[in-house]
């Protein structure tokens, strides 16, 4: 395991790197300004699985939304293989913490909503809906309504909806954090299979360190003050097994450094 904020994430499959430099985001409320993060520099490998990890309220989700272009950054630059690209120009699919399905539409129609939003030609829609529901193992639920499914199934539909538009990047904002641990474990394994099959770039936000280590090639760790404190490469070969020694070692070393860092830099109370 290597670890340094300067080391770019590298994986076997990725060739292209997206570089984020000097990202800054603050919110002002009247006279007071709250800085979520500043001077963030990091790389994301295309085709790789990158996690953004940190304690609750550290700005992980805000960072994800800035990368997605849903929230404009105050400052910063994004380059892809050295070429500058506009924020918000990524073609992405978004998986939310809650499934955010439309209760009045069937599972199939929920996915069709995303396809229509992206102007996918009508004749291609039904085929895609079936294919991606099959990918998440829910093709027989195509005519069910969201309220008839379990929480885990609904989250699978959310994943199928995000993938069905065939995006370049999949953004996932703590997608398994409101599920029970058994369901979450199952979905993590399936997510890795889906990732291998679709070869998407995934950016995954979590506050769960073992989840981050199990899933990722590379983990960006934010501290409580919105500073990028560490970027960890997880070089454990795949397919990975839950409880693998190497994963546990990586996680405990990572957390040790994180807690040592916390003790050295007390939280900034001024914010």
């Amino acid at each position, binding site marked *: 395991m290597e670890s340094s904020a300067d080391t770019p994430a590298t994986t076997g499959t990725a060739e292209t790197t997206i570089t984020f430099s000097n990202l800054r985001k603050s919110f002002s409320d009247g006279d007071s300004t709250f800085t979520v993060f500043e001077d963030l520099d990091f790389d994301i490998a295309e085709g790789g699985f990158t996690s953004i990890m940190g304690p609750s309220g550290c700005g992980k989700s805000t960072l994800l939304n800035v990368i997605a272009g849903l929230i404009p950054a105050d400052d910063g630059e994004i380059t892809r293989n050295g070429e500058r690209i506009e924020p918000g120009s990524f073609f992405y699919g978004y998986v*939310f913490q809650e499934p*955010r399905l439309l209760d009045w*539409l069937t599972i199939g129609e929920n996915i069709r*909503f995303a396809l229509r*939003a992206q102007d996918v030609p009508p004749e291609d829609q039904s085929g895609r809906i079936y294919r991606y529901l099959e990918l998440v193992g829910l093709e027989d639920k195509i005519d069910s309504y969201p309220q008839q499914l379990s929480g885990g199934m609904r989250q699978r539909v959310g994943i199928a909806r995000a993938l069905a*538009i065939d995006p370049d990047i999949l953004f996932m904002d703590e997608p398994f954090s409101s599920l029970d641990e058994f369901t979450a474990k199952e979905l993590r394994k399936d997510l890795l299979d889906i990732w291998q099959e679709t070869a998407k770039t995934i950016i995954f936000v979590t506050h769960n360190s073992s989840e981050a280590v199990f899933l990722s090639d590379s983990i960006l760790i934010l501290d409580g003050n919105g500073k990028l404190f560490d970027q960890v490469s997880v070089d454990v070969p795949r397919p990975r097994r839950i409880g693998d020694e190497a994963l546990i070692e990586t996680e405990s070393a990572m957390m040790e450094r994180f807690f040592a860092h916390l003790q050295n830099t007390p939280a900034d109370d001024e914010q």
Partner: protein
Amino acid sequence: MSETERSVNASRFGLQAWVNGRLPIVISVLVVVVGWNLTAATTPSYIFPTAVELVAAFQEAFGPGAEFSAVNNYGMTLARVAVASICCLVVGVTAGIVMGTSERADDYLFVYVLATFAFPSVIWAFLAVIWFGLTIWFVAVFTVFMIVTPYVAISIKEGIEELDPKLPEMAQAFDASPLLVWQNIYIPHLYPHIFSSIRLTITLAWKITLIAEIFGTTTGLGQIINFYFQANQNHMIIAWALPMMLLMFGVDRGLHRIETERYSWRTDHEPPKAA
């Protein structure tokens, strides 16, 4: 326990369940019937008719040689209720959507809505007669419109505010056009609110129409009731009013049934929602 005992018990439980379910309705009806007969027995028929006298009143009202045409008068009243309801719903739903989606519009329109809320129904009817005179449509439709529209607007506005803001956010993340968001999120979310507004509107509209007809028209059920009131014939008032009450009750139950069937996804199987 023997087989027969068991089956007797089972059927008794079946009957029991039926009685338990229907009992409140049966008792309510019985109380009305007994109360009705007691009152009727101690008063003359023009004040309170017995059931038998009421049947005679029905014959007098709708049999051959009836004083007023049932088709024309019920028809006129129903037409007014329909026109007024449509006006209330079109304007009320539109105003509610505008108020629910634009805070500025809400600030302006809210004053009007509050002001009309404070206005008693009868005053609108009187004002309408003074302004428009005796008319076929205007007094009834205007009175209903002024009273019911604010209720519809508020109900729709609150419906929009109940929508989970995470759903439009989701649509934004998928780059959905405003048209698509309205078609698939706002409108379906509002259907139950629109539906209950339709029920509320019809229920209120027919009662208000009746009052408006007493003051501001020369035809319709309200006029007939006014006529028999002047003539001091209560049994005829009841005979004319009952069919309309039954019809409105039926319409409301019918709409309620469609509502529960159409939106069964809401109640059918409702596990706790994700946080």
